[in-house]
């Protein structure tokens, strides 16, 4: 026994000595930048910083692709009454309240059309060493967002674009005559920009319950206007005022829009690319203690958000470089609302 122990000791000593001498001979070599990234395993989280107007930002980016179809009985952010920050709002209302919120839809055979999200991130805004805002955002988002929207605070531009036929259906005889004079027929394609408004037609990004044309907005001609440029000029005489163009309603309750398409559903997503084709970019929900200008991750512009809870679903640059609104509906959907798509498996369609 003693001789074996002695041998083991010697062997161990030799091995250790060998290792130590090996390390003593290793030279330290500085790594070039392009070699650094190959050293350890790849990571799916990284951290980036930014700075603007005295506010420092720290963002944690997650390299993830998410496909989901989910239902929530209630999504509620910012339910508070405060005469200083929210003067004149209904008591008990929230900055953001959506009942029966759902992402994605269920088809008739119970297969799923998911809501797709790429590159989510979490960002903190600091003023000195004080956190003044936090936001959760998605680099890309595409799919159907459903819900009974009770109130929304944020920046959500909507593009209403389509044939003028639904307008003719809603218009009185005199209004049809006026439209005819402006060169607009049933097959003319018109467009209008809508945003969150109050019942009086003023833009109201805080706890809005309606979306529509703000005072002074006009209908524009896309195609099929018989008088060309003159049509636009004539249409501009009929600006929206107090949520009406002539007698046509131009503001609609958000609760009418029970399923909203986010991004461009007409473009198919290619499985070969990590990017989601046709996705809306720059979607985030944030909470801040003061007005904060967050950086748009897509085009590096600054988005101004208001104090409180805020949802930003902005215009984004599409594949052709045009700025497009994230939600596009036609005039029929604007007047009559958008019915809710099936978001539940089995027999239910909502509220599951």
């Amino acid at each position: 026994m003693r001789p074996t122990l002695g041998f083991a000791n010697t062997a161990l000593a030799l091995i250790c000595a060998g290792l130590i001498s090996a390390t003593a001979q290793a030279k330290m070599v500085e790594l070039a930048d392009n070699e650094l990234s190959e050293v350890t395993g790849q990571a799916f989280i990284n951290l980036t910083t930014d700075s603007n107007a005295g506010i420092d930002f720290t963002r944690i980016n997650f390299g993830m692709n998410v496909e989901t179809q989910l239902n929530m009985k209630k999504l509620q952010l910012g339910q508070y009454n405060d005469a200083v920050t929210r003067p004149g709002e209904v008591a008990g209302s929230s900055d953001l309240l959506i009942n029966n919120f759902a992402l994605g839809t269920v088809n008739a055979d119970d297969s799923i059309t998911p809501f797709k999200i790429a590159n989510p991130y979490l960002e903190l805004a600091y003023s000195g060493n004080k956190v003044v805002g936090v936001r959760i955002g998605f680099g890309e988002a595409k799919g159907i967002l459903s819900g009974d929207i009770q109130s929304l605070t944020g920046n959500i531009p909507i593009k209403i674009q389509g044939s003028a036929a639904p307008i003719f259906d809603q218009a009185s005889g005199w209004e049809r005559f006026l439209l005819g004079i402006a060169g607009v027929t049933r097959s003319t394609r018109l467009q209008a920009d809508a945003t969150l408004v109050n019942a009086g037609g003023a833009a109201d990004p805080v706890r809005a319950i309606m979306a529509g044309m703000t005072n002074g907005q006009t209908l524009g001609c896309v195609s099929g206007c018989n008088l060309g440029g003159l049509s636009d000029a004539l249409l501009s005489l009929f600006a929206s005022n107090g949520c009406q163009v002539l007698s046509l309603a131009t503001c609609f309750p958000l609760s009418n829009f029970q399923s909203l398409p986010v991004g461009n559903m007409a473009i198919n997503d290619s499985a070969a690319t990590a990017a989601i084709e046709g996705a809306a970019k720059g979607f985030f929900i944030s909470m801040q203690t003061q007005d904060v200008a967050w950086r748009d991750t897509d085009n590096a512009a600054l988005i101004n958000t208001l104090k409180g809870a805020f949802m930003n679903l902005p215009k984004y640059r599409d594949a052709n470089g045009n700025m497009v609104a994230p939600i596009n509906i036609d005039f029929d959907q604007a007047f009559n609302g958008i019915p809710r798509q099936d978001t539940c498996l089995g027999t239910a369609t909502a509220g599951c």
Partner: protein
Amino acid sequence: MISKTWLALGALFALPAYAELQALDDDTLSGMNGQGGVYLSGEFSINKDGGVLWSKPASNNPSTWTATQRSCANAGASTPENCGMRVAIRSEAEGGWYVLDNLKGVFSFEGLTLRTRTINSGFGGDGAAFNQDVLEFGLPNEVKFKDGSFAFGVANQGGWQNKSLSVANGGNPSYQQTNIFSAKIDGTIRMQGNVLVFPQN
């Protein structure tokens, strides 16, 4: 002297061959009480100076390593580092691997106790209803770590392979490991208390 030792040892070995073990009946067994306990102190190190699979290379650039070299230093470090133990688990047929990588360091503790204890009182009233024996592990007052580290990630192969080397040179360009996070621990963690363990049906 030596022969006496061998005799004594031989006697010890021979003894069981003569004495027959008989089972104690339950009554006798239940009358026995455990006593005393165990007080443990220890130090153990895992791959403190590197392991057996990979030797430490001269630089942190994977393309300069040979087939048996690997450095586990962080991204951006200028000096290479020895690698710790690696455990890989596959939970799916033909799937990828969960990897606990670079597990190394020196871990020491003093005062881990182990004994049995009968609980039939205390614990806010629960003890009386419980009335059972438990195994009590007394936590050490201090646990010291020195250069402890580990990394948790996922990979498409169980064993690590060098992505920057060609297959001919002993690497595998299609090897992919995503580290989820890694941690280094150094210093003393103070703790106190006991863990009571008992069977549950």
